Structure formats: C-alpha cells, structure tokens
C-alpha cells in the first residue's frame, strides 16, 4: 500500500506531473471537437453527392471523386494519413501540429460519416421523397425539409459511435510529436519508469469521456424519439 502511494505521488504529484494529463486531455478534446465538426461537414457533402447520384443519376464525375476519396481514406490507416499530411503535404512548412491533426482526423472521419449519412438518406422510404416532390418541393427542398431531418434521427446512434471512435483514434497523435492525452501519460512513464499508473489513468480518462459522450447521445436520441412513428 505504501508502495502504491509512493508511486502515485511520484507519477502525478512530483513536479506537477498531472499537468501532462490535463494538458494532454485539452489537446485531445480540442482535436476531437474540431475534427468532428470538419468530419460532419465533409461527410455531409460527400453523402449529398453520393445519394443524389444514387437517386437521380446526376453528378457522375463528382460521385466518382467521392468514391475514390472514401475508398482511399477507409482503406488506409489513419496514423499513416496523419503522417503523410504532416511529413509530406506540410513537410516543408512550419505548421501548427494541432491543425494538422484536426485536418487528418477530420478528413478521415468525413469518409465514415459520409457512409453513415448516405445510409440514413437511403433508409428513408421513397414515398416520403415522392410526397415532397408532389407537393411542389424541388429536390433540394425535399432533402432539406423532409428527408434529412428523418435521416439524421435514424443515424444518430451510428454517428455517436463514430465520434467515440474518433476520440480514441486521436491517441495516435503522438506520431507527429503532439502531446495529447496518450502521449502525456507516456511521457510520465518515461520519466518515472512506472507504466501501470500513468497508462491506467490515461485509459480511465478516455473511458470517462466516452461514457459522458454516450450519455449525451442517448439523451439527444430520446428527445428526437418523441416524434417517432
């Protein structure tokens, strides 16, 4: 027990080492939050192009580009994409690493979100679309007022899951020497030569954040379900 206490003090109290965790958490949350927004924007655009092509046969070239994007992004590891963006694309530039991480994780998430949105759009009964069009709404208005609100509700659980995955995926940010939560714990380990407590603390913090986020999604889901059919 005394041993545990000593280790705890050494890992977190001495030299204010807990700062590595809190500062790392801040970086992790910042990357995740902004990457989620970027991912939703990219995913939304890709999904609109893909489903418009599926429904109307228009936007052939844009659809091919979107397909290539989705295939490449989903077919390669995110950590490789992160390193390519940092060391290759912005290799000769002095650029904020957090920005690079947001870009890499946002672009990556966008490909997954696109397929989530698209499956949501395609899951809405064709009759809904026809009802909208027969009232005189054009394609865009029908999408906006009738299809999207229902699709969003249907994909919310999948979307929530994607955000949880994204939050955890940012743990590879250390590959471009970003001090996120995981890296913070790892730095403590390298200083104190104690692996157990720092990594346990890191895992615990991820777990708590995921649980909070899961709770938030389920609250939102319940609100939207009020109008369920």
């Amino acid at each position, binding site marked *: 027990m005394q041993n545990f206490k000593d280790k705890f003090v050494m890992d977190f109290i001495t030299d204010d080492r807990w700062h590595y965790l809190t500062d790392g958490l801040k970086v992790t949350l910042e990357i995740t939050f902004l990457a989620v927004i970027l991912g939703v924007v990219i995913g939304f655009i890709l999904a609109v192009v893909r489903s418009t092509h599926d429904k109307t046969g228009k936007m052939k070239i844009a659809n091919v580009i979107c397909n290539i994007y989705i295939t490449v992004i989903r077919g390669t590891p995110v950590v490789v994409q992160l390193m390519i963006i940092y060391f290759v694309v912005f290799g000769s530039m002095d650029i904020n690493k957090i920005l690079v991480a947001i870009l890499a994780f946002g672009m990556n998430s966008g490909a997954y979100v696109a397929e989530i949105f698209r499956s949501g759009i395609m899951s809405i009964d064709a*009759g809904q679309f*026809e*009802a909208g069009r*027969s*009232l*005189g*709404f054009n394609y865009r*208005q029908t999408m906006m007022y009738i299809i999207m609100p*229902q699709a969003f509700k249907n994909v919310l659980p999948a979307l929530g899951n994607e955000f949880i995955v994204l939050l955890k995926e940012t743990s590879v940010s250390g590959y471009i020497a970003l001090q996120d939560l995981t890296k913070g714990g790892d730095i403590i380990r390298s200083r104190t030569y104690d692996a157990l407590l720092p990594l346990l603390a890191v895992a615990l913090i991820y777990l708590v954040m995921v649980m909070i986020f899961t709770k938030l999604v389920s609250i939102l889901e319940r609100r939207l379900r009020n109008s*369920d059919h």
Partner: protein
Amino acid sequence: MITNGEVLIKVENVHKIYNEGRLHALNGVSNEIKKGEVVVVVGPSGSGKSTFLRSLNLLETPSTGKIYFEGVDITSKKTDIDKHRQKMGMVFQHFNLFPHKTIIDNITLAPIKLLKKSKADAEKEAMELLKLVGLQEKANAYPSQLSGGQKQRIAIIRSLAMDPDVMLFDEPTSALDPEMVGEVLELMKKLARDGMTMVVVTHEMGFAKEVGTRVIFMDAGQIKEEGVPKEFFEHPKEPRLQDFLSKIL
C-alpha cells in the same frame, strides 16, 4: 360534376419503358382530362394504371410522348415541373405523411415554404381544412398516433392546402382496413361534389359508379375502353373488360 369542356390535362401518345425495353408499362396512352371531371381508372394489377396516374405529375417520366397541364408541355426539359406540381395534388396508397412533423406542420409546410404564406395564415387555413374532416383535435398529434383512415384524410387535406387544380389519387383506400375505407371515400365524394377535378386509380367500383363522370379501363399499358359509368359497367364492349368486371363485381 360541372364540366365546362376546358382541357386541364392532355396526354399524347405516352410510352413508358422500363428495364431496357423488357417492361412496356405504358404503350401509347392518349387522353384528355377536362376541368370538373372525376375520372376513375380501373384495371388489373400490372395494367399500367398507376404508372399512367404517376406520369400525369411526372413522378414517372414518360419515355416518349407529351403531357400538357393547363396548356403547358410539362414533359419539356425547359418546364419548371415543381411550379406545376404545386397545382396537382397527389394522394398515395401509403399516405406518406411526414412522420417527424405534427399534423398541422404536415399541412402547413408546403404553403409556408412554397406559397410564402405567413405561419398564422397557413395555420388558420389548415385548421379550417381539419374542421372539414373533423380532425381539429389532432392538429398537434404526430402521424403515428392516427389510424389509417385518419392519416389518409390528413394526406388529402395536406394536398388541398396548396389549392390544387386537380387531385390525383393512387389507390387511396387499398392500404386501409375495411372499416376505414368509408370515411376516406366520403371525403373524396365531397371533393367531387364541390367540383374538384379528380383522377382516381381505385378498385372501389361503387365509388366509380356513384361519383365518376368517366371510367377508364386499362390493360397491358393501354386504354382499352372508356365511358360514362352506367354504360361502362352495364354494357362493356371489350372482352378483357367483360372478363375483368365479371371477376370483381
């Protein structure tokens, strides 16, 4: 049932071909629908009657042929079909109410967004329509809380809220429990009596006889026979029609 002879919809030699020619859903259909008419379209399943109806507002695009609505060629690429659809109400077999919106919002969505009516005006008119069908107390309910017959009556007044010049009905009672068919047909009869131009695809022969001004029999993608209900039902000429009527009457 007043027809003043003015042609509202004109269909000219329309063909609809699916699956690279394997299915000829419409095989040279021509017809004129005049203002005030209640045209009932009957025929066996797969006869093309629904495709015919759905091509009138271009939910199905004809492969060849032309359709004129109020004198405008709506099959032309240059025509803004959305504008014309506002004047053609459509009622579906499966109601297609918007499940994420309340009844009142279902009715007011198009008038507010497309006719630029104020929310207050649109809701006032919607309440009057709801009163017409006796469903005022459902204004703030969601579609899931309604019976099939109630849903279909709401779907009808949702179309009426756009003040259409013609109403298209695609088997409006086929998905209903038998005891709910009556309430929907009553509303449709009322519309007919008030002079609404209607095209109705249905299996309700009683409705055709009672309020139809003209009955069309379709088979194999063609109009095989048409006429006033009395003549149509009592003295069918076409053997296919005689056969069809003997099976359903």
